Structures are given as C-alpha cells and as structure tokens.
C-alpha cells in the first residue's frame, strides 16, 4: 500500500516523451492520411451508422505543426506579447493558485483527519458531510462563491475572483488528504500504541511522535490525488468565475477564435498539461523529501 520510491532514473521521462510523440504522430496520421482515406474531411465519419469519427480538417483537427507555430505568433494582431508568453504567464499564475489551493486543502484535510482520529464521534458525524461535499458539481458552486464572497471582508481583505478559485481548488483537494491522513493516523500497530501508552504519552505526543510520521507513506498518494484535484478546481473555477489571468481562462478566450485561428486554443490546452505535470513534479519532490530516510519498498 505504501508508495514506491523511484530512484533518480530518466526512464519515466523517456517513456513520457515517447508516449507524447506517439500521441502527436497518431493525431497527424489521422488528419493527414487515415481521415482522407476514410473520407472524413468534410463530414463526421460513420461507423455502423453512428457518427463517431471526427472530421479530419484544419478546423476540427489542426495540425500539430500549426499548433507549434501558434506559440510564436502575437497574442492578438499587432500585440507585442506572443502566445507563448501569454500561455506561460497564465500557466504560472494558475500554478501559483493551484499550489496555494493544495497547501490550504492539505492543512484543512489534515485538521479534519486529526479531529476524526481523535474523536470517533466526529468521524461518524463528519464523514457523511465530507462525502456529500465531493458530490456537489464545482461548476455550480463557483459562481455562488463569488456572490457569497462579495459579502465577506475583514481586516482590509476583500474577496477577489482568485479567492474563489483558491477556495474551490482547496475544496476539491482536501478530501483525498483527509481520507489518506485518517488512514495513516490509524495505521500504527497496536503494539506501537501500547508502547506510547506505557510511556504515559499524551494523545498529542502520540500523534506527533507516532501517528503523524506513520501517516507519511499514506499522504504521498493522497497528495497526488489532491494535486490533480487542485489543478482541476483552479482551472475550472477560472473558466467559471472569469478569472482572466489564468490558463483556464485562456482556453475560453482562444476558443472564440476557433474559426480564424483553430490551432490557437491547443496552445492553452498544452499549458494546462504542463500545469498538471509541474504540479506532479512538485509533489514528487515533496514526497522524496519526506520519505528520504524510509525503507524503499518494492511493488508487490
């Protein structure tokens, strides 16, 4: 159940690049050769009478090379900012927000797990709410948080659109953390707990010296889930609340140029992919740091 430690090998990276190259090659071959051969350039291709195969033209499936060229073009006609700069900036802004959301979600999630581990009553009472909280569609919640947040202001702090994205990212990411941390806090051997009892250790000392460190191997996979949840939450909120400086919003705005510059939106999509990868890399680094002294475990 515990995480597998990867040694600093380049293999996953090589396989990742190969997988991406394969995907792009498949895209190109469909739009250039397979599509035209099947006759799907003008209309959606039919399989057994169902419309399934996408159109293989520049509007629906722009060439990978066109997407590449889009990065070098100006953001809007006559602008000095290139698409690359805009996407990089948007990705960085979203990354900052997603990391902040993950940190907030981790704090709240661990706090909830502490309460649930400490008081069984809380676990029984709180768990249903946690589960329900994860079934609320984010898209529905995002505009509401803007309305509600508009009424909140304290110590000179005013609710902003980014606050909504932060809160929603944290809202999505705290759940896997809470569940993983709770399992981790309850993972120590009964003998280890007896040992702490024999030292007359208080609940908090036992938590700090036994339950928390024992939970670290459970937190790594939870962080991975929470990381992608935070990215998803932030990107979707950007779209939903109209947070214009993030990469999520770029998708929306580039989409409007779908007929004039169909390849442009894919630059923003690439930005979100990079965003997810950067998040995963950050979490991997944190994981490696936290488990640096742990025994290495093999997949079984």
């Amino acid at each position: 159940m515990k995480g597998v430690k990867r040694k600093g090998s380049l293999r996953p990276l090589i396989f990742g690049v190969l997988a991406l190259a394969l995907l792009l090659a498949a895209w190109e071959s469909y739009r250039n050769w397979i599509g035209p051969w099947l006759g799907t350039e003008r209309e959606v291709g039919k399989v057994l009478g169902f419309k399934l195969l996408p159109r293989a033209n520049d509007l629906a499936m722009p060439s990978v090379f066109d997407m590449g060229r889009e990065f070098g073009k100006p953001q809007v006609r006559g602008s000095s900012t290139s698409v690359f700069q805009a996407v990089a900036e948007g990705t960085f802004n979203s990354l900052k927000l997603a990391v902040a959301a993950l940190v907030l979600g981790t704090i709240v999630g661990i706090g909830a797990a502490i309460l649930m581990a400490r008081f069984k009553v809380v676990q029984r009472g709180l768990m249903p709410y946690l589960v329900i909280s994860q079934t609320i569609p984010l898209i529905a919640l995002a505009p509401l948080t803007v309305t509600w947040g508009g009424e909140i202001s304290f110590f000179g702090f005013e609710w902003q659109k980014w606050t909504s994205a932060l809160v929603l990212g944290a809202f999505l990411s705290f759940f896997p953390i809470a569940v993983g941390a709770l399992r981790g806090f309850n993972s120590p051997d009964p003998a280890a707990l007896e040992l702490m009892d024999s030292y007359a250790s208080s609940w908090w000392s036992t938590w700090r010296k036994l339950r928390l460190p024992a939970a670290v191997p459970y937190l790594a996979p939870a962080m991975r889930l929470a990381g992608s949840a935070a990215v998803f939450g932030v990107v979707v909120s950007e779209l939903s609340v109209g947070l214009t400086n993030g990469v999520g919003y770029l998708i929306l705005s580039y989409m409007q140029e779908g007929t004039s510059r169909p390849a442009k939106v894919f630059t923003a999509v690439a930005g979100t992919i990079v965003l997810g990868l950067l998040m995963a890399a950050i979490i991997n680094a944190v994981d490696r740091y936290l488990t640096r002294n742990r025994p290495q475990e093999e997949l079984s």
Partner: protein
Amino acid sequence: MTLAVNVTAVDKVFNAGRPNQVDALTDVGLQVTAGEFISLIGPSGCGKSTLLRLIADLLQPTAGTIEVNGKSPRQARLDQDYGMAFQQAGLFEWRSVTKNIELPLELKGWDKAKRHDRALEMLELVKLPDRANAMPWQLSGGQQQRIAIARALAAHPSLLLMDEPFGALDEMTREHMQAELLRICAATQTTVVFVTHSIPEAVYLSDRVVVMSAGPGRITSIIPVGLDRSRDEGTREAKRFYDKITEVREALRGSEVGAGGRDDR
C-alpha cells in the same frame, strides 16, 4: 526485601456478561522481589500477556489489587517506573537507532544533550555503539531487538516487562540474546517479568518460573530454578538445567490435563 510487583487476588474478565465473556485470569497472586527475574509460561490463552499488561497498567483488573514499587500501576506508569519490550521490536522506521532509544526520554522532557548521552550509553550496554546513526531497517532482527531493549531501559527503569521479546528470532540469535539480557540485567540491577512460550528459555533466564494454565487463566505452580546467577553456555548442558526443564514441562503438562486434556506442545 522490597517487592517490585505485588499482585493479590486478581481477576480479569473480558466482555463481562456478554456471550463472548472470557475469564482471562482468576484469583492470581504473584510477588516479585526487586532484582528478581521471573518468567510467565503457559499455553495460549492462559493469560500471561494479560497479566503483564495488568502490571503495566495497559489493562485494568476486574477484581483484586496490583502494586508496582509500592504504588498503583497507574502511578508507576506515569513515573515511567518500568520499560516494555514486545515480540516485534517495534522500532519507529522514520527514526535513527539513537532517536529510537531517545523516545522515552523525549516524552520525559529531557534536554537534547542529556538524551543523546544516555542513548550512546545504552548503545554501549547492548554492544551496538557503531550503529548509532543506522536506520532500523538496516539492522538484523536480533540487532533491532537489542535496540528495543535499549529503548526499554533508556530511562533506567527498575522494572522491565517483556512479552516474548525473542519469539521472532532464530534459535542461535535467541540464545545469544538470552545471555546478553542476563548480562544487561545484572549490570543494571533490573527486575524482569518475562513472558515466553519456550521452556528452556524460561529455565535459563529465570530465578523463578511461573507456570500458568488456561480456561480460566490461573497460576498452577511457581518453580524456583536456583541455577548459578553467573550462567554461561555451559549452563545449557548442565544436568540441573535439564532437570528443571523436565520439572517445568511436567508442571505444564499437569496443568494442561487439569484444564481438560488440551495438549498443544
């Protein structure tokens, strides 16, 4: 003669009044003198581990009284009067060997330098001074168990409670660890209550062997061993050692017949 442990007329019932009620211990009395080495031996379910946990205040007796160093077990636990070791060494895998030994001292609020000095002293005692910075998973099973003993003794408790501490070790390591434990206890003047399944282990280590039986758990006989305290490898081949093993085995067998003819040895 001071008593380290005084158990009087203790009963322990689990799940009282429910269909799954278990009479773990019935009318158990045991006096352990300071500096003595006592083994509890008996078949599974005879309550020997339960008795150990009652002394440790990890369980409460249903009836009867227990005193540890003249105090209630609870007070003795709060004062860290005893150290404990289990079948699994139970070292914390995220802590170095030294930090594992320091654990009880941290909980007592000792300062860093004092803790470290004591940990090194304990490492000398268990003869692993060169593994101070090793992580637990880098040690062999026997070494891990030695660190667990060092941890149990770190706060210099007067009493050591051990629940089959060598049960998971191979025979060679086990005999070596037994000799080491005797040496350590002699050096530190520690009283030991030792739970075991092994008759030779009980005889080799103990001043007295407490034979228990199951259903309900009780003490059936207490056998003084009377081997020379400076025992060595030769002791394991002495006639008196074999005589005592036979005596304990017969006591166990008798108690099992009395308990309904169960024979799981």
